[in-house]
């Protein structure tokens, strides 16, 4: 008679269970995903206590948390949230919802959970970044840099990016009332090319070119992320997945620190990479960048 596979017998709610949970990839996926939900709760506060309880359950009662039904129920709670409070929801909430469903589906076949969750994560990220790329290519105002300039004008968090392009905070402050006048009346126009703000022609040219390069670089990065995650695991492009996504996270969240989105991308990225050690460290660094930027805003 062979002995049953040895697994430490511990009470369902215990520190030992929590420690064992952290040591397995599946445990990490469930725990971090549930924890991310607490931050997602910023979009609808009634879900915060629920997500907090859910997170504690994944930590202290890992066996119970591996029940697919619980994850479907959590997904249903988020469906209710987006129906009740649609105006408070941002795009990463919908990605989170789809990821909850992906985990629920993955848990139906626990032996192959990491394979299934990794595959689902790949497709979800490919869709998200392909969509973002398509909007930027078709908006008509992104490639010129006008969209980034306008975002920087109205969102102070973007100022460091525009400063790098040679656009000073003072010139933005000067432009603000003029752009307000443009959008409030008929026939008014405003030229954002920087000769309007700077007598230094070389600086103006640099800024115009820099804005366009930032826009093109953003499109290229997001398109490459979409392609690398859509490509099969055997493709050479697959090796670029984590570096590209981490690079995107560093650049984006060092400017606009959307912590729930950073956490969600990190847990999906780590799942796709099967929690390979170096990849995990890179994603942890990416999340820390978002945390530091958020704390210093």
């Amino acid at each position, binding site marked *: 008679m062979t002995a049953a596979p040895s697994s430490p017998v511990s009470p369902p709610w215990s520190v030992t269970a929590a420690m064992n949970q952290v040591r397995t990839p599946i445990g990490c996926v469930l725990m971090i995903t549930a924890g991310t939900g607490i931050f997602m709760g910023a979009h609808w506060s009634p879900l915060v206590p629920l997500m907090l309880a859910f997170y504690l359950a994944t930590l202290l009662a890992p066996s119970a948390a591996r029940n697919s039904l619980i994850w479907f129920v959590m997904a249903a709670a988020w469906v209710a949230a987006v129906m009740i409070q649609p*105006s408070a929801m941002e795009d990463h909430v919908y990605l989170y919802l789809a990821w909850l469903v992906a985990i629920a589906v993955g848990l139906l076949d626990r032996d192959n959970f990491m394979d299934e969750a990794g595959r689902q994560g790949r497709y979800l990220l490919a869709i998200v970044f392909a969509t973002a790329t398509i909007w930027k290519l078709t908006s008509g105002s992104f490639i010129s840099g006008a969209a980034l300039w306008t975002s920087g004008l109205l969102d102070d968090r973007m100022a460091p990016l525009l400063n790098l392009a040679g656009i000073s905070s003072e010139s933005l402050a000067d432009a603000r009332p003029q752009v307000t006048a443009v959008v409030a009346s008929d026939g008014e126009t405003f030229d954002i090319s920087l000769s309007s703000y700077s007598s230094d022609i070389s600086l103006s040219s640099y800024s115009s070119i820099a804005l366009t390069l930032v826009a093109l670089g953003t499109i290229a990065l997001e398109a490459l992320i979409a392609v690398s995650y859509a490509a099969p695991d055997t493709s050479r492009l697959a090796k670029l997945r984590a570096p590209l996504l981490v690079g995107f996270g560093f650049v984006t969240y060092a400017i606009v620190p959307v912590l729930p989105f950073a956490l969600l991308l990190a847990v999906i990225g780590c799942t796709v990479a099967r929690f390979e050690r170096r990849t995990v460290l890179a994603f942890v660094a990416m999340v820390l960048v978002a945390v530091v930027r958020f704390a210093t805003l």
Partner: protein
Amino acid sequence: MSAEPAANSTADRAAAPRLRSHLALLRAVPILVLLVAIAAQATLMTTVNADRQAGSGFAMFSSVDFAGSRSVVVTATYNDDVVDVRLPISTTDQVDGLLRSPTEDSAAQLARDLGEFEWVEQDGRIRATADGTNIDGFSVTVRRLTADGHELGSEVLAHAVAP
């Protein structure tokens, strides 16, 4: 004690192919959830000019047009002059809704609702007050930024005048 897990394991193995065939269908669900959410927001963005930076569009920072860059312009005729209207704080949610998803109907509703207030002139504008006069004919216009290369302009998204 060890027989039960073994039996479960055998049962699990027998059930596995059936589960996997169901999974083949269920596997598509997360992707469908995301695609439906994106399609719904894309439809709202293209039909009723819903805000690009809200909802499930994944269109953040992609355009000069988003709720924060739009404006709601309200005027009224007061003593035979067209004057700007300083909107009461109680209309803030209504105005936010107009900025996020401007329609002729919601603009008309705001124009009608403003007729319920009493107004007084101050510094060339009118503002709501408890002991002013009623005014009809409020005009509500929602405008958005446009860009032609580096040149910003604007256009009307929704417009309504209360009768």
